[in-house]
């Protein structure tokens, strides 16, 4: 019965996640049609790093096949599969599907809440979930290192977050070694220390199957983390009063409290990685997407220890043997499959199989995207350099036709000089620093977010040199007043 309930919950999660609108960042792959240096002139001269070749190839292929809707469906499916992997990883500790499902629901609902944050690394999240799951396999067979190698190979060619996978494998080794030294207690490692070494080696082997070999690690990870990434990736330290801070704080308290009341122990490898990620999240909250699934799996043994076994009637009657189960019928399996099929039918993904009316594009795409602004700029392409929010750069690049000079986007971030990002922050900071920055890059158009860039919006409104030409709920467009006078465009808004 609990299996059925789990299937129903998974079906609901399936439907819910498939309706998560496509947020800004996956769309960076849409921008690959346009030569980066021509659309983002400030990247000229910088090395072009391409750690996401595989993702881009897949995304562009899917887009060319089914447009943005298909891309949205792909992202949803990837997240659903990630949830599935987390479910399996969670279940591996206690074989209690209901408990694992409830935990996965927490992960899934956080995916829903933080959809726009999760999206950039959607393929990375999938690899991360699969790697966690593979690490929970208790049998130390050769299939495990092969799976680790394949996952790492896909990851290193799909998303620059692959180093977190290497961190997990290394932590597993450290954890098993520590557990081995402390022999007086029960060893909670999934496997022996030397099997952890093999997994680490397999991970490295998989990682090395990329066009840049070791350079991908130095170039894409170490040097950029040390030299550039804090600047160009706009690392935001965790603010405890924010919603993410509350999630983090609650999770720490929960894990701590659980460890006090439970007699079970954490898996040392997962605990090591979890501690490192906990510190990492304080430095940059972007790491939350790696922290969450690991936390879900980390706490399973303790949860299983403290939560009563509501999904087992072990006390009243003996469990059926495997032979009895398989010999009877496939009722539960068929009903579970039916539930999953129903979930599939009710999700937009099914359109590709059973047909149906496509959803309006406004529902597919996140409302955080500047649809109105892009439409306005497409209608009257501005000359000269445009200042805009980094998060909007790829959408603007995708939406605008012809030649345009954009500033920075998520896609062009790794190739953007750090000083440009410092200037970007400076321009958005309170005060009149924006004037110097605007002069330096000769911006003649500013595309600003109403919600996130209110200070600069206010400053430009107060400046005689800038005139507002468009406004809707998401964004505002300003042009140099001299340009407005020349062309005399009429003020418009999305309502008109």
């Amino acid at each position, binding site marked *: 019965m609990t299996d059925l309930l789990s299937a129903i919950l998974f079906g609901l999660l399936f439907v819910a996640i498939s309706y998560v609108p496509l947020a800004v960042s996956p769309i960076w792959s849409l921008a690959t049609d346009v030569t980066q240096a021509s659309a983002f002139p*400030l990247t*000229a*001269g*910088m*090395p072009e790093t391409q750690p996401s070749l595989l993702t881009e190839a897949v995304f562009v292929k899917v887009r060319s096949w089914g447009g943005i809707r298909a891309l949205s469906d792909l992202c949803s499916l990837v997240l659903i599969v990630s949830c599935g992997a987390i479910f399996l990883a969670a279940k591996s500790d206690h074989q209690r599907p209901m408990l694992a499902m409830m935990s996965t629901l927490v992960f899934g609902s956080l995916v829903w809440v933080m959809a726009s944050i999760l999206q950039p690394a959607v393929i990375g999240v999938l690899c991360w979930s699969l790697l966690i799951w593979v690490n929970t396999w208790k049998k130390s067979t050769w299939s495990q290192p092969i799976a680790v190698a394949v996952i790492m190979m896909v990851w290193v060619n799909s998303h620059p977050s692959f180093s977190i996978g290497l961190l997990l494998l290394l932590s597993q080794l450290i954890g098993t070694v520590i557990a081995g030294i402390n022999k007086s207690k029960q060893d909670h490692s999934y496997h022996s220390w*030397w099997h952890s*070494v*093999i997994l680490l*080696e397999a991970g*490295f082997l998989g990682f090395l199957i990329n066009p840049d*070999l*070791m*350079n991908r*690690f*130095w*170039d894409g990870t*170490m*040097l950029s983390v040390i*030299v*550039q990434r804090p600047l160009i990736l706009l690392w935001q330290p965790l603010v405890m009063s924010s919603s993410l801070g509350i999630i983090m704080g609650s999770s720490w308290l929960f894990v701590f409290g659980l460890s006090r009341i439970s007699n079970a122990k954490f898996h040392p490898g997962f605990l090591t990685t979890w501690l490192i990620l906990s510190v990492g999240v304080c430095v940059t909250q972007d790491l939350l997407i790696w922290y969450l699934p690991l936390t879900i799996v980390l706490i399973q043994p303790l949860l299983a220890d403290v939560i009563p076994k509501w999904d087992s009637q072990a006390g009243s009657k003996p469990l059926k043997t495997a032979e009895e189960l398989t010999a009877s019928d496939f009722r539960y399996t068929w009903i579970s499959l039916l539930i999953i099929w129903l979930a599939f039918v009710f999700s937009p993904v099914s359109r590709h199989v059973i047909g149906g009316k496509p959803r309006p594009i406004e529902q597919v795409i996140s409302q955080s995207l500047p649809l109105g602004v892009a439409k306005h700029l497409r209608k009257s392409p501005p*000359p*000269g350099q445009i200042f805009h929010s980094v998060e909007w750069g790829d959408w603007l690049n995708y939406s605008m036709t012809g030649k345009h000079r954009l500033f920075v986007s998520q896609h062009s971030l790794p190739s953007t*000089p*750090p*000083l*440009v990002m410092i*200037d970007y922050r400076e321009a958005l900071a309170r005060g009149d620093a924006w004037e*110097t920055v605007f*002069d*330096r*890059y*000769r911006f*003649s158009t500013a595309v600003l977010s109403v919600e996130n860039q209110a200070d600069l919006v206010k400053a430009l409104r107060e400046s005689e*040199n800038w005139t507002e030409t468009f406004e809707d709920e998401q964004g505002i467009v300003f042009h*140099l*007043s*001299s*340009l407005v*006078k*020349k062309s005399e465009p009429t003020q418009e808004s999305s309502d008109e």
Partner: protein
Amino acid sequence: MNNQRQTTKLLIHSILILALAVWAFVGLKAELAKRNDWPEFRNEPPIVRPLYDDANVISDADLDKVLWKLRPQLRSPQEKINHIDHALRMWSPSASFSDPNCISGLEMLELMLDNRKFRTSYTDQFKPLMYAGEYGVKVRVQEGAGSSSHVDHTIAGLSEIGVPLDYPVVTETGETTVAAILEASLKNFRINQFEYEWSILAFAHYLQPTGGWHSREGEWITFDRMAERIMRQRLVEGVCRGNHRLHSLTMLLRIDENQPLLSTEMRSQIIAHLQNVTERLIQTQQEDGHWDPEWPGDEWDGPQNVEGLPLGIKADRILVTGHTLEWWALAPEELQPPREVVVTAAQWLTQTIDELSPGEVKSYYTFLTHAGRALAMWRGQFPHEVITPEFEL
């Protein structure tokens, strides 16, 4: 038996991990080496000489009068380094004067480059002008009277007057050479930095022919990209109403004639840019010959947004007119305006300088050095070549 098996396993995996570590180390070394492709220096910078000698622009007598007025009477203690820096560029190290109030070129050079001499004029409340930085010797900028006024202004000035890179520099931490100043400038250079025109000028003089190099930001730097950067902003932006950027572009063209710096396309782009500037200057020259701060007129993105100098409009006009005549004196024929434009401007400048009070000369000294140098160069000479050791009126 089991122990032996374990040991073998341990050995094999240790070797594998060690091999990976070695590979990683070699990879890192190669990566770092790739980022250390700094260009080589040349000890003796080229001297870019003026191209014209036209007595209609300024007569010998008028030039003497102007230069006399602009002699470096900078012997007072704690004189602004900014003034010394400019005076050194105008007069060069070989200039000397009979006027006891004047400081010779060599004294100026030593004041700038030798911390012991610097300390004879500047008390301990001033931080040293030259100090050891992360990548070489850094020049203190915009920190009061004892500091330079602009990023890399000093090294650019030294390059223009031909100071070799092996010339000694003495800081609080010891003795080094001018090359250490250049090295710091080169390694701190970023294409989008706030002031870059003097850095580019110094690089054009002191670097061996190079196809480019990686900045510390990982950006590929070439003279083409630097020229593009100069031309990116509005014409009036930049110190001295944008004129230093025009000067740097002119110098790139001149140095490129003997030592390849630019691609053919970029050379053409620079020429077109400067021709456009010359056209604008012809259009906006005032009847009496001077230019106002809004000299470029309207660009495609509108009129210039200019705030007046605190020193007043006369100072602003001297600044723009003097600087314009300076880069024109070095610019090839194809960038020249009709000669009467230069003559009218030079006449206005000469007369205006002649009418300046000593107080005004003191206040305007930095940009007057550009005016004085410009007028001398229109007679085919640098100021120190015009004067004799007994120079006086």
